[in-house]
C-alpha cells in the first residue's frame, strides 16, 4: 500500500504528462504560429502546472515554493503568448486558413500576406 501523497502525486504526474503531450500534438497538427500558441500557451502550460503540483507531492520541493511557482507561471503564460503573437503579426507572418482579420484595417502599414 502506497502512502496517499504518492498516489495523488502520481495522478498529477500522469495528467501533466498527458497535457504536455497534447500540447506537442498541437504544435505538430496546427497550421500557423497563432493557432500553435493556443496549444503551447494553454495546454502545455497546464501540463507544466500539473507537473509542478506532482513535484510538490513527490519531491522535497516545499509547498509554498511550489505554489508560488505555479502562480508565477499562471501570470506569465498569457503575457508571453500575447508577446509572441503580437511580434509575429508585426513582422507580417500570415494567418493560414484565416476567416476574418479585423486588425488589418487598424494596422495598414503591416500587410500580412496570405
Amino acid at each position, binding site marked *: 500500500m502506497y502512502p496517499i501523497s504518492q498516489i495523488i502525486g502520481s495522478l498529477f504526474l500522469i495528467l501533466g504528462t498527458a497535457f504536455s503531450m497534447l500540447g506537442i500534438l*498541437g504544435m505538430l497538427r496546427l497550421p500557423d504560429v497563432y493557432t500553435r500558441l*493556443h496549444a503551447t500557451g494553454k495546454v502545455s502550460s497546464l501540463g507544466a502546472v500539473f507537473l509542478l503540483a506532482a513535484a510538490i507531492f513527490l519531491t522535497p520541493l516545499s509547498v509554498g515554493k511550489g505554489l508560488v511557482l505555479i502562480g508565477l507561471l499562471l501570470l506569465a503564460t*498569457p503575457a508571453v503568448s500575447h508577446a509572441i503573437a503580437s511580434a509575429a503579426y508585426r513582422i507580417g507572418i500570415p494567418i493560414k486558413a484565416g476567416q476574418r482579420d479585423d486588425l488589418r484595417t487598424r494596422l495598414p502599414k503591416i500587410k500580412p500576406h496570405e
Partner: protein
Amino acid sequence: MSPRNSAIQMTFLLAVVYLLMTGNFEPVNLAFSVIIGIGISSLVRPQHLSIQWRRLPIALAAIAGYLIFLLADLWKSSIQVGRILLDPRLPIKPGIIHIDSGCESELAIALSAHAISITPGELIVEMDHRGQMYAHCLDSSQAEELIAEAQEVRRNLLSKIFE
C-alpha cells in the same frame, strides 16, 4: 519620493522576496539577493510603490482569487483546445476579431487582456491605450458569441477586483 529612492525601495522589496523564496540567509545569498534586486530594478521604470498596510490582506486575497480564477479558466480552455486537437478533422476557423473593452484605466485594460488571453480559444494579439483589443480565436465563425463571452468574463473579473 525621488526616482532614486523608489529604485532603492524596489531593490529592497525584491531582495526580501528572493530571500523568502530561497529560505537561505547565508551572507553569499544575501549579497546575491541585492544583486538580483539591483538588476531587476535597473531594467524596469522606477515607480513609487505606495503600500497601504491596512489594505494588504484584501489585496493579497484578491490576487489569490484571481489566480484560482486563472487556473479554472486554464483548465477549461485546455480541455476545449485539447478536444479540437484530438478531433481527426481538426475543426478550426482561425481569425482575428475586434473587442472594444470600453475600459478607461491602464490597469483595467491590462487585466482584461490578460484574462481574455486565457479564456477558451482566444488570444489577444494587439491592444492600445483606448481599450481596443484584437483577439485571435480558433473559431471565428462564432465571433459575436466569443465577444459576448469575453465581455462577460471581463465584467465579472473587474467587478471582483474593483468592487
